[in-house]
């Protein structure tokens, strides 16, 4: 029997259509409902399960057990999709569900040895899942139902979530997990009038290209090989010098390929020297630490699901840091060709908070896509 976990945040996305933004915090969902919002998270979770069941088909479908929480926390969606459930958590009756319910449900579900945890929600829910999992390793996939979705843990839609889940559960080898960023809006910055987001951590997400590629040539879509090529190119460009690595799945993989042990969500600085292992000179560095480094190469990769290069999750790399490092000439943008193509022609986005600097950085920049390979790609404010 295949076990899959499901946790729905029933209030996720409520604020979107009524202009409230996210529904994090105890009061917002009720306000949203009073403004006429209709819950949609449960229906979207059911759509994802429906797609999963359709793709699993026949005996696999009959052998599918969804481990979940009672009522709107998951069981309603499982019933709507016509699948078998096992309920391992129930919120106390007579009150609205909260983030604490999400966390408790996640812990109860993953204790049941599920092959994949589906959650329906937005960035706030993703943070709750990240916190609840702690050190428990369980593949996770987000069904997008929230208002804010800067995180890279979501499938592109409910159906796509079902498709990825089916590919992951039915795998016979070849499907890998990738570390995907959990991002959320930075409420401190918001209070100061700046819209920006913070990187909170990483969740293991099945790396199933939703547009499964047909082969004519022999290249691959998910490729540690491409990351190795990018790492080699970075090492060649820097030679002997300082390399500041922003957060991002590509920069992290590059750091690993270079043999450096870097922090999870922060900005790190390495001293590179040909023929020697890299030396970590700053870990999880703040703006002032980076400023003190002086001239350095800055390696950045697009972060989250929307192609932000600066201003989301890497605010430590501030306008002052960018200028002190040497500006555009010292910027190394790292991205695989497949990831660039997935942007659908949209530019890489800049939001440093300094319009003059953003304008200076805008325009075509060679993005490193492999060893001795670049793509000229547009950066825009």
């Amino acid at each position, binding site marked *: 029997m295949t076990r899959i976990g499901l946790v729905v945040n029933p209030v996720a996305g409520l604020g979107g259509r009524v202009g409230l933004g996210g529904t994090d915090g105890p009061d917002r969902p009720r306000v949203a409902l009073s403004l006429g919002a209709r819950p949609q998270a449960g229906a979207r979770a059911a759509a994802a399960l429906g797609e999963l069941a359709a793709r699993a088909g026949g005996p696999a479908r009959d052998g599918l057990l969804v481990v979940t929480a009672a009522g709107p926390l998951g069981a309603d969606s499982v019933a709507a999709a016509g699948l078998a459930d096992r309920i391992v958590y129930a919120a106390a009756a007579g009150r609205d569900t909260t983030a604490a319910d999400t966390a408790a449900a996640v812990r109860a579900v993953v204790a049941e040895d599920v092959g994949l945890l589906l959650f329906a929600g937005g960035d706030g829910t993703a943070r709750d899942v990240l916190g609840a999992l702690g050190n428990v390793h369980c593949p996770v996939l987000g069904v997008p139902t929230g208002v804010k979705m800067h995180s890279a843990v979501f499938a592109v839609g409910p159906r796509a979530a079902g498709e990825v889940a089916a590919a992951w559960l039915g795998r016979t080898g070849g499907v890998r997990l990738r570390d995907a960023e959990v991002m959320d809006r930075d409420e401190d910055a918001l209070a100061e009038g700046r819209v920006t987001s913070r990187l909170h951590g990483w969740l293991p997400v099945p790396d199933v290209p939703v547009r499964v590629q047909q082969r004519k040539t022999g290249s691959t879509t998910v490729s540690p090989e491409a990351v190795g090529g990018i790492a080699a190119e970075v090492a060649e460009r820097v030679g002997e010098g300082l390399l500041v690595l922003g957060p991002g799945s590509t920069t992290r993989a590059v750091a690993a390929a270079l043999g450096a042990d870097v922090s999870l969500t922060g900005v790190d600085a390495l001293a590179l020297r040909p023929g020697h292992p890299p030396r970590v000179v700053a870990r999880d560095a703040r703006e002032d630490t980076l400023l003190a480094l002086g001239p350095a190469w800055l390696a950045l990769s697009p972060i989250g699901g929307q192609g932000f290069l600066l201003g989301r999750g890497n605010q430590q790399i501030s306008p002052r840091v960018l200028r002190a490092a040497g500006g555009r000439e010292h910027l190394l943008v790292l991205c695989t060709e497949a990831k660039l193509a997935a942007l659908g022609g949209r530019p890489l986005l800049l939001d440093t908070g300094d319009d003059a600097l953003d304008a200076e950085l805008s*325009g075509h920049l060679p993005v490193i896509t492999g060893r001795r390979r670049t*793509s*000229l790609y547009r950066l825009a404010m």
Partner: protein
Amino acid sequence: MTASHAPVSVSPEEARIAPKPRLRRFQQASWDEKLIFELGSPGERGVLVPAADPSVPMPAIPAALRRAEPPALPEMSQQQVLRHYLRLSQENLGADLNIDVGQGTCTMKYSPKVNDQFVRDPRIAALHPLQDEDTVQGVLGIIHSLEQLLKEISGMDRVSLQPGAGSAAIYTNVAMIRAHFAARGELDRRDEIITTIFSHPSNAACAKTAGFKVITLHPDADGYPDIEALRAAVGPRTAALLITNPEDTGIYNPRIEEFVRIVHEAGGLCSYDQANANGILGITRARDAGFDLCHFNLHKTFSTPHACGGPAAGACAVTEELAPYLPRPTVEFDPATGMYRLDDDRPESVGKMRPFYGVVPNLVRAYAWIMSLGAEGLRAAAETAVLNNNYLLHKVRQIPGVSVPYAAGRPRVEQVRYSWEKLHEDTGLHSEDLGLRAADFGTHYWTSHHPYVVPEPMTLEPTESYTRADLDEYAAILAEIAREAYEDPETVRTAPHRSTIHRVRPEALDDPATWAVSWRAYRRKVLGEAGR
């Protein structure tokens, strides 16, 4: 973009000329045939070859080349072999069997069978490449004449027919670019080659293989190669631009001369990948746009068949300035003696790209194809290919769920990269699902090179070979599949149902541990037998 479910309006006149095509009740043969290595039995044989007459002296085969034991080949009668391959052929969708307009970028035009008769003629088939050149004057004459024809078609000064395929021709051109800058002492500072994401990936691959750094340009918002990106990319390090035109989107780059000028002003060379030349034969030429080098795929544009992945044939054409670097030997004609000869004494040559002087059977086919059409015929073929493509475009864009990204409202040249993104958003089905469903109607299509810049892609290239009825039938198949996708997605998702084509798990192709491309590898990796 039309994306409604409204039926296509057809005038009575149109209905009379092109009645609504009937969808075939196709059912492919499925033989459940074993691999040939699993057939036959020890001692079974087909033809008994008579023993050599002991009175005839035979040169001794060097001991190092002699096998200690016979090769482990299947032992079968001739009839069994014939039956085996006939069965396999019935489980295929060959170019002579289906309406093969779906293999976009490949130019699957009809290959006239008479050209194969020429190739099988003993005067071609019995030649050996090591024969003295005095004894192969006929075939050298054909090669020389084909070179003259391709000079005229490209506008260039010299041609080499040695490369064995399109990618080999691209590599040959890159090697000549390298030789050119090496001869000028500039190679150490000119180490960058620029290409575009919609040019064939072999351009980037060959440039990198030859030691250049590769800069790839992405399209602008209209789908044209981004000229601002080109300006940002060129500089004193630029060795060359390798570009296809029209690109694989079927969009002709109207600023191609400006692209060439920008690169020339920076001191770089321009090489034209003419894989997509089928819509521009006799209409425009590489030289006229200012290019220094170009190549043709004779197995595409000039009808020598693709032959299931080879052998193909490539032709490189260059300006006089680059001629010294052409592969050797070249085929020369000496008017004084009236004889053709092979010139191996070319010190600046990039050397041999393959043994001898080309894939001769394909050169004969290409020569015959061009000669049978003549200059007027080549242009008519190109015009018909463009007309066919835009007719199919007109039909396909009316199918619900299809869009035609980029260059809105403009016609395409010889192919179109369509997108099923809307249908995917509506139904969850992928372009690959629809392509597999097409197998249930006895045809297929190809999506795109990757990465997929156009989401949910489908690339169709009808060439000049297909009739209006063929195109109507093909469009009707796509329309039927789109209807099913909206009304009965399960049928499409689980297709094919009436074909022997399979769904393939693509992730397995990423894992060398699962590849078994030979019987020996199959025994080791799949059957788990000890390695031999």
